Every structure is written in structure tokens, then in C-alpha cells.
């Protein structure tokens, strides 16, 4: 059974009086444990689609079912809980809060989901920092970390609430080749070992090759779905 189902998903924007269609009529089924890459040119609607999947952007039409629940029929608070507990989101830009240390950034989602009791969250944060190879940077502030390190902390943060799916927007966008490979291996490892669904937006052909399914977007449509590398 599919974990995530998109039905006729669409998003329009009004820009300077004109209606812009960013995504139109996308229907898609995603199974638990899938490793999916969304590719396409700039402006093809990749990020918009991912944002609607991550419940951070309301669609103009269509539905997103997550484990059978129509997420956009949920109220504001329930939607926030869905974002906190079910989805881990990795942004395409530096997304750590500058006033907090790396560990505190990891603890933030647990604070919002209420999963921060008993000191287990702190231990989990340290474990995930070690998993992303930054065990020695637990108390570092974002300003003291490189771009690649910040990205890895953001990935660790996305894992903190043990989500069912990780959505990542250009997770290796500004990383060097070596770090990109590290991140990709990390994703594959988590996907394999924890059976967590991964949906990535990427320009990287390396990353796309590693995916179980590759979804190619063109002018807001799904142009092609390729299975396997």
C-alpha cells in the first residue's frame, strides 16, 4: 500500500495580476521506504511540489494523503503536528537557527512535537550528530560550521522525530563533490537501515542515479517517471 498519495495536485500563484501555474494535475503514489528523486529545469515546479508534500504550502487544488490521512483537511495545529512527527524537511538553504548550537537546533523539532522529555532527546541529538559525522561539533554554533557541516546538521535535525519520510530540497546544492557523496551515502544508509522514505529534489545526476524512482518535472507536469538507476 502506498504511504503517500497525491491526487490531482495543483498550485497557482498570482504574480503582478497574472495567474502562474507552478504545478498542475500531479497524481502520484509513493510507497514506504521509496528513495525518489524529483528532477527538472529551474522553474519546472519541483520545489513547489515538494513543499506541498511537506505541508508547508497549501495546494490550490488536489489532495495529499499521508498514510491514509488527507493532510490538508487537517486543522492548523494538526497540520503542524504532522509536519513535526511525520516529515523531516531539509531546505535548500542554510536553515539552522543562528542563536542555537547544533545540538539545540536538533532539539528544536522535539520541542515542537513534545518528544523532548526524559533526556532521551538529548542523547538522540548526540547520536544523530555522530551519525552525520559531527560528533565533535555538538556545541558549535552555525556560524562556526562550514556550509557542508550545516547541511549535515540540518539532515540530522530532520531525523530527530523519527519521521516516516524525509523531504530534501537540493540537499547537496552547494556542497563539494566529496561532501555530496558523503551526504548521499548517508541518505542511502538511513533509507536502507530505517526504512524511511526519501523524496529529494536535485540537479545532481549522481544523486538521481541512486534513486529507486526518478520523477522528471516539466512546466508543472510530471513528464516522466523512470524506475531504477
Amino acid at each position, binding site marked *: 500500500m502506498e504511504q503517500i498519495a497525491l491526487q490531482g495536485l495543483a498550485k497557482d500563484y498570482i504574480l503582478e495580476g497574472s495567474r502562474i501555474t507552478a504545478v498542475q494535475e500531479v497524481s502520484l503514489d509513493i510507497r514506504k521506504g521509496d528513495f525518489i528523486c524529483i528532477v527538472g529545469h529551474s522553474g519546472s515546479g519541483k520545489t513547489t511540489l515538494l513543499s506541498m508534500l511537506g505541508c508547508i504550502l497549501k495546494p490550490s487544488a488536489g489532495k495529499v494523503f499521508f498514510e491514509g490521512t488527507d493532510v490538508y483537511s487537517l486543522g492548523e*495545529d494538526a497540520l*503542524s*503536528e504532522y509536519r513535526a512527527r511525520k516529515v523531516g524537511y531539509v*531546505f535548500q538553504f542554510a536553515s539552522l537557527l543562528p*542563536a542555537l548550537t547544533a545540538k539545540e537546533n536538533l532539539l528544536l523539532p522535539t520541542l*515542537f512535537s513534545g518528544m523532548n522529555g526524559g533526556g532521551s532527546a538529548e542523547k538522540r541529538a548526540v547520536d544523530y550528530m555522530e551519525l552525520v559525522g559531527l560528533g565533535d561539533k555538538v556545541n558549535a554554533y552555525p556560524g562556526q560550521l562550514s556550509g557542508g557541516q550545516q547541511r549535515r546538521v540540518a539532515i540530522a535535525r530532520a531525523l530527530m522525530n523519527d519521521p516516516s519520510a524525509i523531504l530534501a530540497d537540493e540537499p547537496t546544492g552547494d556542497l563539494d563533490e566529496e561532501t555530496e557523496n558523503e551526504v548521499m551515502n548517508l541518505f542511502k544508509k538511513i533509507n536502507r537501515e530505517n526504512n524511511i522514505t526519501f523524496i529529494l529534489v536535485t540537479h545532481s545526476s549522481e544523486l538521481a542515479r541512486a534513486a529507486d524512482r526518478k520523477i522528471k518535472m516539466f512546466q508543472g507536469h510530471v513528464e516522466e517517471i523512470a524506475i531504477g538507476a
Partner: protein
Amino acid sequence: MKFSLFSVAVKNLKRKSFRTAVLIISIGLLVSILVFGASFILSVGSSIEKASDRLGADLLVVPSGAVDVASDVLLASKIKVFYMDKDIIQKVEKVKGVGKLTWQTYLASAPGQCCSIPPAEIVAFNQDTDFIVTPWLRKSLRRNLKKNEALIGYNSNKNLGLLNVDSTMFNIKFKFVGVLEKTGTGLDNAIFISDKDLKDIMASSSMAKVKPNQISAIFVKVKKGYNPKDVARNIMNDIMQVDVIQRANIGKRMLSTLGDINKIFLITILMASVLSIFLTWTIFSAIVNERFREIGIMKAIGAKGSHIVKLFVMEVLLLGLIGSLLGTAAGMYLSAFLSKTFALLRDLSATLTLTQRVEVVALGLVVGVGICVIGALSSIIRIKNLEPLSVLKEV
């Protein structure tokens, strides 16, 4: 500190320490003005009321036209003299409703000429009838003053340290043998002698302006069942040469002056409040704009609108609370400092009771925090309803 929304709020404020300091100082300044103003108005107002209560008389009979001067002497420790004929005592005694009465005669010391003490109001009181000075002497002197003995007011003793020292007043050596307890009235700054010494004083120095058979004021207690207002009217009707001040009206002129000062303080506080609200609004609008991305990120990783609101409210409350506490402390210090240098406060021995202090502190905290909340309110409402990605896209 355990990781919580509160610790995040503290870290956010610490990160922009200069801006935080500017806001805290602004709120602190406003609150210090408010606390100082409130302390001033409360302490002066209640001191005048208390002082008139503590005089122990229902009515004060003074020479015609000397009402304000008498208030100055009794409440504001001004050194002033005024006289009327002594036979007025008998006339007042006969007025319907008059109960106990006593009288005092005032002299102004003349330092460097006939007196070795600094400028002071010297009060000659009648020990046989007195009920004004004696109640404040219970602890320090349990007998009548002997010839050439004097008493010293609480503040005069503190300032001059004359107890058990021989001093010359109007060319006569006096010994200070007792100190009055603190009365909170002009009596605290005076020196007291028996009116039996007046004869010698008048004989030995021309600096004492008083003539034989003159007194300055008569203090009257009305008989039980009589209204002081009616008795005052009776005295005024029967004796043309005097004015009568009721206890409730002592210091009325000062209270009306205080009313004007009160208005000035209120206008200043109002303007400062508006300015602080505007400043808080400007700074919080800037903070929210600057932190749009952070808000979006927090929402995207599961923060509810209430989490974001709580976080910003905590920051606002922290700023308001710290600013208010500092402002309250500064305002209290300012009023304590100025009570020693401001003539009006110093002369009145104006102090706040514990309850008044608590009220002033509470007022400072409520206004300081309230201004921060009002100033930040529109920004907080704005961020509450934003969609995560719309926030991220605005960056």
C-alpha cells in the same frame, strides 16, 4: 539552562545584545520616570496628609493672613515667624465647642549674631497645656524642661548632633536634653524651648522679634460631638484678628501645587509611553522582518502558531520585565536621592510606606511590560497566521 522555548527566547535576545540593550534601556528610562513621578506624588501627598494628622489638633488658630506661612512652618520646615496677641487665647477658650488648647511662639535663630546654632525655627511651647510636642518625647525625656533646657527635632539632631551639647540661642546658653521622635512634620527640623524662657530671651537679645504677650499659634481640640468646621466658623465669627485652619485643610495650598506637578509628570509619562510603544513597535517589526526565515523554518519543522507566539511573547516579556526592574530600581534610587536634595521633599520628610513602595513597583512593572506587549502586539499577530513557505519566500 534546560532547553525550552524560554531558553531559545533568552538566546535570541542575547544574540542581538546591542538592540536588546537599547530596548531595555528605553523601557527602563520610561519606567524610572514613572516610578519617580509616582513616588514623588504619593510621598509628598501622603506626607502632607500624615503631617496634618500628626499635629494632634483639630484646629490651628493663627494671625489673620498667616495661613500659608503657618502651613510652611508646620509642614515644610520653613523658618518663618508670625505673632498675635496672647489674650486671644482667652477669647478662643470661650468659643462654643472649643475643648483643650495650647499655644506656641515661634522664633527664628540668628546664626553668627546671637546664636551658635545654624538657622532653625525655635518653638517656645507651653508645657502645662501642650499636647503637640510632648507625645513625641515619651522615650527620650519623661519630665518637663527646666530653665535653659531645650529639645531638638529628629532631623535637626541627625543633621546637627546637638544632644547634650551647650549652645547659645539669643545670647543665652541652652542645653539640649532630649530628641523628639520622628513626626514626619515640620517639627522634625525645629528646636523646642519652654515658653517660660521667652522672657529672658527678649531681655537679652533684640534679635528675638517677639514682644511680651505675643504668641504665634493656638492649637485647638474640639469638644466631643462638635464639628471642627462649625467650631472654626465660631472662632472666625467671634475673633476678627485670626484665621483658623482645619486639620483637613492644612497643606491645601501645597496639595494644589502638587496637583500641577502631578499633571506635568502625567504628561511626561504619557509622552514617554507613546514614544516607548512606538520604539517597541519599530524594533519588533524589524525583528520579525529579520526573522521571517527563522519563523518559516520553525513552522516547517513543526512549530504551531502558538509556539511562535509564545516565543515572541517570552522575548517581549523578558525585555519588559528586565527593563521595568532596572527602571523601578533607578526610579526608586532617584526619588531617594532627590528626597535629600529636592527642597519640597526634604522639608516634608517625605517617605513611602511599604504598601506604597509595593504599589509603585507593581505600577512600574505593569506599565513597562504592558508597553512592550502593546508595542509588539501587531508584529506577533502578523507572524501567527503566516504559512511556512510564504514566510520563507519573503526572505
